């Protein structure tokens, strides 16, 4: 699979402060790629550097297989981007704002404006001034502005910010639809849940460094195996499991439900046998998949502790 974004040793410094620290990033084509990190982790700076909005201090960047900044115009002709919040000329209508950007792109861009507005559900409001738009409508207009480029790559900086639940759902559907059309969507977010629901691949960034990247499922599966057990007598179950040295930890995971971290070859069947033998009724026993959130928090807290 070709990489649509590739960076090697990408670094951006502001004075002595390192905002992006030797980032090696590979974003495969045709996927939704989440760039996940806490606020201030360097997500927006990396996006600005990718797009040439600010100059990299060192390192290499390639967009759509084209080296940057040498082939900047060729690459950006097929890239749509929202950086930080989508901004527009408030005194112009939605349609006029798109025509302003279309004028800076190829001639076909202007012809795509009606379809782009239709796609994001803004045809009916396209003749209204943008200053009358809600934040959600501006987000959608920002997506429409990306679409007039017929982009192979969309770079969206915190696209869910400020959206209500319906807006978030709609944005997620749009992103998945873009991926279904063969486009690549690179989105930054600090919302773990959204990245997990929307993206195929993820890179976790903290303190300007990419600390982990790969398929969402694979990253969530990293860490020690765990087990969710529902029992009739929680206290007794804790007592039994406490005597088993291969159970690394036991935590509450709801009423009468325990979450165990297994170690040293301990299997679900072993746990079940030990509990039943001790007279504890087991009504549910299933392997627990670590969430992306757990992985993310484990990584970022570890980094924080190391600093």
């Amino acid at each position, binding site marked *: 699979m070709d990489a649509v974004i590739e960076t090697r040793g990408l670094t951006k410094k502001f004075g002595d402060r390192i905002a992006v620290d030797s980032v090696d990033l590979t974003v495969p084509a045709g996927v939704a790629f989440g760039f996940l990190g806490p606020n201030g982790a360097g997500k927006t700076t990396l996006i600005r550097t990718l797009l040439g909005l600010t100059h990299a201090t060192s390192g290499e960047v390639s967009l759509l297989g084209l080296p940057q900044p040498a082939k900047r*115009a060729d690459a950006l002709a097929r890239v749509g*981007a929202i950086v930080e919040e989508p901004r527009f000329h408030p005194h112009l209508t939605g349609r006029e*704002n798109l025509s302003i950007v279309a004028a800076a792109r190829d001639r076909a861009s202007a012809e795509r404006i009606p379809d782009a507005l239709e796609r994001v559900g803004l045809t009916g409001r396209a003749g209204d001034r943008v200053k009358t738009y809600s934040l959600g409508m501006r987000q959608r207009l920002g997506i429409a502005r990306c679409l007039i480029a017929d982009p192979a790559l969309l770079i969206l900086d915190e696209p869910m910010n400020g959206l209500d639940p319906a807006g978030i759902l709609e944005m997620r559907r749009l992103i998945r639809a873009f991926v279904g059309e063969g486009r690549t969507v690179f989105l930054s977010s600090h919302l773990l849940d959204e990245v997990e629901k929307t993206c195929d691949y993820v890179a976790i960034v903290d303190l300007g460094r990419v600390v982990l990247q790969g398929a969402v499922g694979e990253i969530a599966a990293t860490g020690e195996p765990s087990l969710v057990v529902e029992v009739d007598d929680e206290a007794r179950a804790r007592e039994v499991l406490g005597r088993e040295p291969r159970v690394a930890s036991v935590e509450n995971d709801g009423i009468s439900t325990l979450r165990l971290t297994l170690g040293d070859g301990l299997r679900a069947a072993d746990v079940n046998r030990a509990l039943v033998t001790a007279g504890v009724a087991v009504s549910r026993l299933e392997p627990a998949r670590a969430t992306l959130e757990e992985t993310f928090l484990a990584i970022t807290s570890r980094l924080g502790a190391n600093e």
Partner: protein
Amino acid sequence: MRLVRAEILKLVRRRGLMAWTLILTVGAVIVVEVILVTLHAVNPEHHGPAGGQENMSHYLDVLLGLGTLVAIMVGSTAGSQDVANGVFRDLVVTGRSRSALFNVRVPGALLVLLPILAVAFALGVGGGFVFAADLGHPSGKVIGEYAAYIFASVLINVVIAVGLTSFASSRVVVGVLVAWNVLIGPLLLQISSLGGARRAIDVAAIDHFGPDQYVNDSVTMSTGAALLVLAIWIAVFNTAGRISTERRDA
């Protein structure tokens, strides 16, 4: 050309700016004409006809002063609106060069301004002819001098305003340029100890194209020198603005 059209769209859709542009140019000339025509109609013994060369000069003097102010307003808006509205970065990520985005600002501003100024100018000149009565008609030479004078003033102020707004906010630029045109520039021209150095001041070069009453006798220069001074001012501010736009983070 599409970028220039986009620049024009951004300016003409600003209702406030366009309203003030019309009021301070077309409106101002009409108001002065109405006043002079009314005075003549009410008291013809004390107030002569509202036309002729002298009254046309009054109309065009008003247009010169307020037209320069409007040029500063429109130029500073053209130079700052993309950045002020946060849209500049969205234009940059289209892949268009920053210099291309900068270079359309002056043509866009002039294409918005010049038709309006032309209407106001035609009204002023027309008043000189229509209301002339027994006064002589204005001479073609004076009309030509005013046309060149107003155009030079508008052009240089639009270019400087667009260039300066790459460094400062539009409000600051408007203040600085009004102060320069009204106070500082004319004051410098009065300082005789500056000698021939005063020829390098844009106000002196602009005045060279005006009717006789505007030419400072102690700061005379050839038309070629005046054109050269204006060209240098345009080149300096245009280049500085473009370089700043190319280098700034979007």
